[in-house]
């Protein structure tokens, strides 16, 4: 089948088998290996990407279902060489160890923050329930998401950085306010 998909700002037109999973299309055909596969049952969330701004597990979708849609992966988050605030918060809060779950965890966290701009501990934990991490015990992930929420608030951070912060958050394809 013929599909046309915009991935991280680039439009791709491809012939694909109807059974090809979206995650395999991204990894094998487009070389977008930042998105990974951690399980076969949709439990681990390592493959989470955004479809038109909302998180989906790309191992639970066929590539053909993305036809005509916009996909954002972990590789498309940074803008003008600047990390997304959630990426930055994961780094500064040591919210990753092996890093395998991290792309999916970050994509899910951005989706969560779009709905819950100032989440408490429990809201973050429930919001990330579909993403498994085996390394961190989640503590620093929860902290990172809450930290990112502060970073993404309008006017957050020192004055000197406010302009650039708004500049970044305004350009986010998803999430933010």
């Amino acid at each position: 089948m013929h599909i046309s998909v915009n991935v991280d700002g680039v439009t791709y037109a491809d012939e694909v088998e109807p059974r090809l999973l979206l995650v395999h299309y991204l990894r094998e055909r487009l070389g977008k290996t930042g998105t990974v596969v951690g399980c076969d049952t949709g439990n681990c969330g390592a493959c989470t990407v955004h479809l038109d701004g909302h998180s989906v597990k790309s191992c639970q979708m066929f590539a053909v279902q993305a036809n005509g849609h916009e996909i954002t992966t972990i590789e498309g988050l940074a803008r003008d060489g600047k990390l997304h605030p959630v990426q930055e918060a994961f780094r500064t809060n040591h919210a990753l160890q092996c890093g395998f779950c991290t792309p999916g965890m970050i994509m899910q966290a951005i989706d969560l923050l779009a709905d819950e701009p100032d989440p408490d501990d429990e809201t973050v934990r429930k919001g990330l329930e579909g993403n498994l991490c085996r390394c961190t015990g989640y503590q620093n992930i929860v902290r990172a998401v809450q930290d990112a929420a502060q970073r993404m608030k309008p006017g957050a951070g020192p004055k000197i950085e406010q302009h650039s912060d708004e500049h970044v958050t305004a350009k986010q394809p998803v999430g933010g306010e």
Partner: protein
Amino acid sequence: MTATAEPEVGKARLRKEDARLITGQTRWTDNIQLTGMLHMAVLRSPVAHARIRNIDCSRATAMPGVAVVLTGEDFAAEQGSLPCAWPITEDMKSPPAPALAVDQVNFAGEAVALVIADSPYRAADALAEIDVDYDELPVVLDLEEALRDTDLVHPDLGTNKCATWVFDSAEAGSGTNVEDEISSAEVVIERTFRQQRLIPSFMEPRSVVVDPSAGMFTIWSATQIPHILRWMLSAVTGIAEHKIRVIAPDVGGGFGGKLQVTPEELLCLLVARRMGRPVKWTESRTESMLSGHHGRDQIQKITLSARRDGTVTGLKVELLADMGAYLRLVTPGIPILGAFMFNAIYKFPAYRFVCTNVFTNKVPTDAYRGAGRPEATFAIERMMDELAVELGMDPMKIREMNWIKHEEFPFNTVAGLTYDSGNYEAATARAMELFGYDDLREEQARRRADGSAVQLGIGISTYTEMCGLAPSRVLGALRYGAGGWETASIRMLPTGKVEVITGTSPHGQGHETVWSQIVADRLGVPFEDVEVLHGDTASSHKGMDSYGSRSLAVGGTALVHAADKVLAKARTLAAHMMECDEADVEFASGSFSVRGTSTARTLSDVVLAAHVAHDLPEGMEPGMDADATFDPDNFSFPHGTHLCATEVDTETGVVKIRSYVAVDDVGTVVNPLIVDGQVHGGLAQGIAQALYEEAVHDEMGTLTTATFADYLVPSAADLPAFLTARTSTPATSNPLGAKGVGEAGTIASTPAVVNSVLDAVRHLGVRDIEMPLSPERVWTALQGRKADDAGEVAAGGLGSIDAQGGQS
């Protein structure tokens, strides 16, 4: 070159590794695509024990895209036997372990055929077209049943008993005779615990790529042990070791689960050799759970003797350990790693440990985070609570009166180890304070008096462990097939930048960051100027890799020694350059100076002088590189006090962790951010054993928990926030003072949680609940107090396995 402004050791440096991991610029093995690459898919046995009568590959071979279909017969002459490096006794029974089953399968999940195709999808399609006829054999699953030898896993061995390993303090001269202590004791407590089977569940599924081009086999693998893998693959296949290069690129977690020489690594190599083309295999999660090794799975019979005043006098441990169907790399040695830890921090005069390793028709077991030590810690910490209950004493009090006092270090234990340092009083005091122990005890008393539906429990674990694996002479004495040293090299580049080559193989631990900190500190160079190379046998030609919380204590020490060699040579050259006596040269902040003068040369100047070699002292070789290999004299012994408060809903059996305090003494901390992270993750895995995870085989030997929908790796919503803190008594066995932190959280936490739950419900007549403490099991145990016929269930232990759907 600028000097570092403040000490690097102890600094919460953000990780160098993260830049690529948070942006998706990673190098997982499965990302690798090579021209002409073939894909391997593995057909696995659906039955646990059977003779293979026939395999019909004709339809599969004819499928589009299929290059070849291969069976065990095709490899029988060349696959040899997968290695077991730890024959724990001279008479240990060790069955042949073919990577691809030839005429018999011994566990459900064992590889029986391979499809090699041009895409993973087409390979999977063809797998479905292979027909295998099995003649099923009786399955051996239960450990005690297996010992009767009624049915045999490996008939050629004549028994299911693999080996028996004994330590006795009277024989070893490290203590008295335990039978004497037991027979003369005022109190004897006997308990049986079951360590359920666990699945390591690293997030990155295993993956292997083998490129046979250019007269060399280049192997990328999601492994913890590139060096050991290279050695073992060479030994098994006969391919010369220097014609094998192993690369562990970014590796997504291991926890012992990737401390293995896997059937698939060997098969990919053999297929690539046969086909003359690159071959890739990446497992599905279900394949991982069906065929990657499992952990734990022991039955522990523990006898503890004591005086009425609470003083312990003897400890006898009788273990049955499930090997599964084959002996993998260190399978038989895992329970032996626990042998020295049952006595823990307590001064037992007498100790005896007997472990019987048993074959069953299940997935082989091997290392999983803690490897033998969590099992030991669970048993002893449960027993200390049992003793406290028996004597009506406070469980912390009874620990305190029996533990080694801080002024008694170094302390020779009844198990024959020498604990170099520790302060159990300090860690405990800090934990009690952070936890609010007395307030919680008051609340517990109130809830009990009120008959509240939700009861409060307090659990203690005052653990220690042995890590920093390991002194080579000790490994030799334990009949392990390799050493425990580690190696490091430092290359001083002409511009003053530094390359570090380490034999450790990180897979999430942050060695690139921490090794940079160590070198920056030692050499006075900027943190950013250090690059750490690892996980490629072409650049790092030797090493013993990463496991057993060894990397910093052993590998970090090798690095310190290498840095000291660089400095020693640089000092000589600096003296030559400054035309002074070497004894007058001082080194500080990356610069050599002549004492009492303003004459100075930076390390960078000296390195350049060594590199150009225009004017060196007589006999000095050009260059400023150094290698060092460190073999520790002793293990290291992290310890700490963990306190857990749980709320147990007596109407539903649901357990909620209300607070968890972990105070750990891991010696000197190089990077507190990373140490906290290791503790958090360790706690999560230990709590998961207590409450959530269990690999279950049904009565046919089928693993019924082979997906993440069935095997309950906890999510963020299942775990509490942890309160962590540290006390520190530096290790005396290495110059860093580091003890290791990779496994401590896992080792400590399981008994803290289980003790806590039992503390909440013990007054309701519950004496034990088998792990994992699921709502169903907790609820069932609580019903036992009412229904006479459920008495066995309430009593827990082995009697409860059948009733609770375990594997007996």
